[in-house]
């Protein structure tokens, strides 16, 4: 199904959108993250009654029994092992000033992945783990990592690994800016974009479990718990930033810059509505 939609959409040489105004009354808006999270969870548990709740964190593997078997086998010789080793080493390696990552994070950076992203009231913005890692490097006079390359994937992999099993615990402080960031992330998630006119939700809410080319689409709930991930197609690890930008390109939209407001905010939204689901990263994908 997905394939045919994509196929025909891809066939468009030029698409002009003529929107015969679709008017659907939308209820008056009051942002209520708690109610959102409840509805989100209900949507996916109703849609996939056979999937054990915690299994949603396994993305495409939760959607298909054959794949689930593959995943179990993969976990015995996980392809992200080398990234974990590299991450552990980078994490412990002193900066030029003698400090390490441990000096930048609560609990020395161990077992804290589930608390990211958080809304930083001093900076007035959402801080993701990837951003916090680069802020740590920069504040210690080091060069920041590329958001889409191996070092960032390795350090986030290690930090996720030390947090495995801990449920996402994303907080929205009582600060109108935090609520606005959450709302902005939600809006980004549901907004159609690119020539294919898809939103994130077109794929990860309306079509999880369906195949798009050779891949099985992951459900939006728990979609960040396994990050970063190893993918055979990438021949390596990918960070959250890398995944978001490639999902944008897939709909023929020009990706934003990694860690732009929209991306940090959508990460905030998706992590919040996955509260309670355990961190399982790093992950491996076919």
């Amino acid at each position, binding site marked *: *199904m*997905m394939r045919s*939609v994509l196929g*025909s*959409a891809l066939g*468009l*040489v*030029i*698409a*002009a*959108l*003529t*929107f*015969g105004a*679709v008017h*659907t009354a*939308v*209820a008056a*808006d009051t942002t209520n993250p708690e*109610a*959102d999270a409840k*509805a*989100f969870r209900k*949507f996916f548990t109703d849609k996939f009654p056979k999937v054990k709740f915690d299994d949603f964190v396994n993305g495409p593997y939760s959607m298909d029994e054959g794949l689930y078997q593959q995943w179990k086998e993969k976990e015995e010789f996980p392809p992200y092992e080398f990234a974990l080793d590299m991450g552990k080493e980078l994490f412990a390696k002193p900066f030029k000033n003698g400090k390490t990552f441990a000096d930048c994070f609560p609990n020395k950076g161990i077992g804290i992945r589930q608390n990211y992203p958080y809304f930083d009231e001093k900076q007035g913005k959402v801080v993701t783990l990837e951003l916090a890692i680069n802020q740590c490097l920069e504040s210690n006079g080091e060069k920041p990592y590329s958001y889409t390359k191996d070092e960032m994937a390795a350090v986030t992999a290690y930090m996720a690994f030390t947090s495995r099993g801990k449920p996402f615990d994303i907080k929205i402080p009582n600060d109108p800016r935090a609520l606005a960031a959450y709302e902005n992330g*939600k*809006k980004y998630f*549901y*907004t*159609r*974009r*690119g*020539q294919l*006119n*898809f*939103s994130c*939700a*077109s794929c990860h*809410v*309306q*079509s999880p479990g*369906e195949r798009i080319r050779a891949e099985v689409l992951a459900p939006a709930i728990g979609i960040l718990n396994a990050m970063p991930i190893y993918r055979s197609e990438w021949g390596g690890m990918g960070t959250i930033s890398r995944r978001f930008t490639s999902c944008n*390109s897939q709909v*023929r*939209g*020009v990706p*934003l810059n990694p860690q732009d407001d*929209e991306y940090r905010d959508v990460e905030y939204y998706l992590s919040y509505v996955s509260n309670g689901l355990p961190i399982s990263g790093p992950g491996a994908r076919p």
Partner: protein
Amino acid sequence: MRILISALATTMLIAAVAPALAASTEADYKAAYAAAESANNEAGKLRNQWTTAVSALSAAKKAAEAGDFDKATAEAKKSEQLSKAAIFQTNEQKENWKQMEIR
């Protein structure tokens, strides 16, 4: 998926690039390119550029450099239409994104 298909069907209209009746001049190309570039910049400000608009823009430039102003003009016009569609999409989605929301 049904919803998607019908949404795509009702919201997307295929506009064939009108074949140039008369040969295009460098001036035609320059005008078309300027219009395409400005639409592309506007889509960029709206944070919703389409990759196809961007690649048509560079195809236009390449064709012009090779002296093929028919092709260059056609590509620039195509790019402009794509960017205009992107701008339209952005404005349309300002409120309509809520239709897909899980609530």
